[in-house]
């Protein structure tokens, strides 16, 4: 067999994907030594057992194969002084593509998940409008709807990395407050138009029907632009943990402002100054001033495999893959480094990147068996480039932890063990 000539595109083993495609299975097969399907080389492959008997009947509501891995969200321990509060994180390291299954979409609740009977749920629009209105769920379902694929990220996602110290976690535990879904609903502008927004209204205060009546204020220009009053997620009614029967969805913005269990929209001159837009979700800078109403989530990417607490079994070729997103547009480029940022190579985008949605990238990498630091760096359609951690720390210090979009570094040691590192 002809000796393989890998075309290196950046330091420490990043490979040209076109060259790898030409190598086909021969190239990838060379990485995995050993028998195929547990059979001896040269033996005749047999028709499997499950092809010799009928399978199970159709089911009412599907579930994953028992062999596919029992992917679960990672939820925090309940805190008796914060009943119902907390979050659960998506298992990013096990997912592929860009859409998060509904049952694995991350959650963040401030007072638990209310058990809402949609027949009794009301959505009210009041304040600076010509005519206050109340909408039933039944009537909301009759409106023309639009669908959009958008990511949702909690602004506290990845916050632990700014604090430093021992943050030896997985992609899920460190960055799992991130998901992406197709959201279907009524443009908020349509319902606001029906109530008749008065010219002096500059903000919309949105309030949920949970026990905290969690509220956030939204500027009127965004409210009239691309915000949805969302009723469906990936084709089915929004699940209770995501705001059933109806939630606000603000594309590209910090997750908390997409108020779940939406029950009130009040048009106001000024922000309501809710607890969750003053005491929380604000960032204190080194000079002790605090940034408020930081809405779009910054351009960001993350290698999901291989990633923290995984282990590479042997030297050879691996597909490095991950997700990238920006609250200010579509992903234009993702670069990957295997040497801690000394050299970079362009990754391939697995599908056409969309505005304010997750994009998946991939690039082949040959691990030599020596130390490596894997990083990804995203650039969005507005030209924003994802910063390194030191840049974020220099600009923002370590007091706050919201809105961290720094480059994640995964260290690979001689034994193939992978962990979060600071470089």
């Amino acid at each position, binding site marked *: 067999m002809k000796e393989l000539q890998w075309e290196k595109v950046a330091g420490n083993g990043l490979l040209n994907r076109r060259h790898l495609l030409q190598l086909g299975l021969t190239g990838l097969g060379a990485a995995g030594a050993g028998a195929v399907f547990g059979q001896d080389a040269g033996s005749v492959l047999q028709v499997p057992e499950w092809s010799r008997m009928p399978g199970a009947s159709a089911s009412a509501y599907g579930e994953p194969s028992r062999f596919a891995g029992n992917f679960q969200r990672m939820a925090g321990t309940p805190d008796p002084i914060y009943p119902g509060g907390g979050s659960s994180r998506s298992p990013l390291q096990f997912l592929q593509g860009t859409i998060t299954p509904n049952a694995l979409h991350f959650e963040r609740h401030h007072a638990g998940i209310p058990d809402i009977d949609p027949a009794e749920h009301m959505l009210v629009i009041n304040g600076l409008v010509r005519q*206050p209105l109340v909408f039933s769920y039944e009537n909301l379902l009759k409106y*023309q709807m639009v669908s959009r694929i958008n990511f949702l990220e909690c602004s506290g996602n990845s916050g632990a990395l700014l604090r430093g110290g021992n943050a030896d976690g997985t992609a899920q535990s460190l960055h799992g407050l991130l998901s992406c879904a197709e959201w279907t609903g009524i443009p908020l502008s349509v319902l606001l*138009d*029906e109530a008749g927004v008065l010219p002096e209204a500059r903000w919309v205060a949105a309030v949920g029907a949970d026990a905290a009546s969690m509220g956030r204020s939204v500027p009127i220009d965004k409210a009239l632009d691309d915000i949805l009053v969302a009723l469906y997620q990936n084709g089915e009614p929004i699940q209770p943990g995501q705001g059933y029967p109806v939630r606000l969805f603000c594309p590209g913005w910090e997750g908390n402002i997409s108020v779940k269990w939406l029950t009130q929209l009040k048009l106001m001159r*000024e922000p309501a100054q809710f607890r969750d837009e003053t005491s929380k979700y604000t960032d204190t800078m080194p000079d002790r001033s605090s940034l408020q109403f930081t809405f779009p989530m910054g351009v960001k990417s993350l290698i999901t495999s291989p990633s923290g607490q995984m282990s590479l079994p042997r030297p050879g070729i691996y597909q490095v893959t991950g997700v990238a997103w920006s609250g200010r547009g579509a992903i234009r480029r993702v670069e990957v480094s295997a040497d801690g940022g000394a050299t970079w190579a362009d990754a391939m985008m697995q599908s056409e990147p969309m505005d304010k949605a997750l994009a998946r990238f991939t690039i082949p990498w040959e691990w030599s068996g020596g130390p490596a630091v894997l990083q990804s760096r995203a650039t969005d359609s507005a030209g924003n480039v994802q910063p390194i951690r030191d840049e974020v720390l220099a600009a923002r210090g370590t007091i706050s932890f919201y809105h961290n979009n720094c480059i994640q570094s995964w260290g690979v040691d001689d034994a193939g063990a992978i962990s979060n590192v600071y470089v």
Partner: protein
Amino acid sequence: MSTYRTATATGRILALLLLMGWMAPAGSQEAQIRLGTPISEEQLSALDLIAAPDGSGMPPGAGTARQGREVYELNCLRCHNVNGEGVSGNTVIAGGDMQSEESPLRTVGSYWPHASTLFDFIRRAMPADIPKSLTDEEVYQVTAYVLFLNGIVGEDQSINSETLTAIVMPNGNGFVDQSHLH
């Protein structure tokens, strides 16, 4: 032919629908049905809990810190502890200094920019295990007590819609609005 007639009839209906605007693209105003039921602000008075810095949404009533101490001890002490000292990071509601050498302790007194937020948040979300169980009067009283614990009002100062929204919080000028950056 009946097929031809049917097609023509369908075409006429489509043309009519287009004229009526029913087939216009999603989002255009003509296409939208209007199914909101008119309601008055008075009918919404028990549901609308937004108490804003300009005093809008603040109910009638008043209270002092001296009255609020008892409300606090009955309803808040378990989590917020004596004198607002708290039992964990998020439950500390008094003290702190934004200009401290080390990372500042951020509390109602040291961090919160608006006094109205205290009334608004207590009324909508506290106590965490039985939210909305306090009367408006009790919310004013306990609001006064938390402000008193932070040295912002006197023990017998009456807190109502007007006096609450007139308070300038210690960190009231500490925030930079980023809302235009999108």
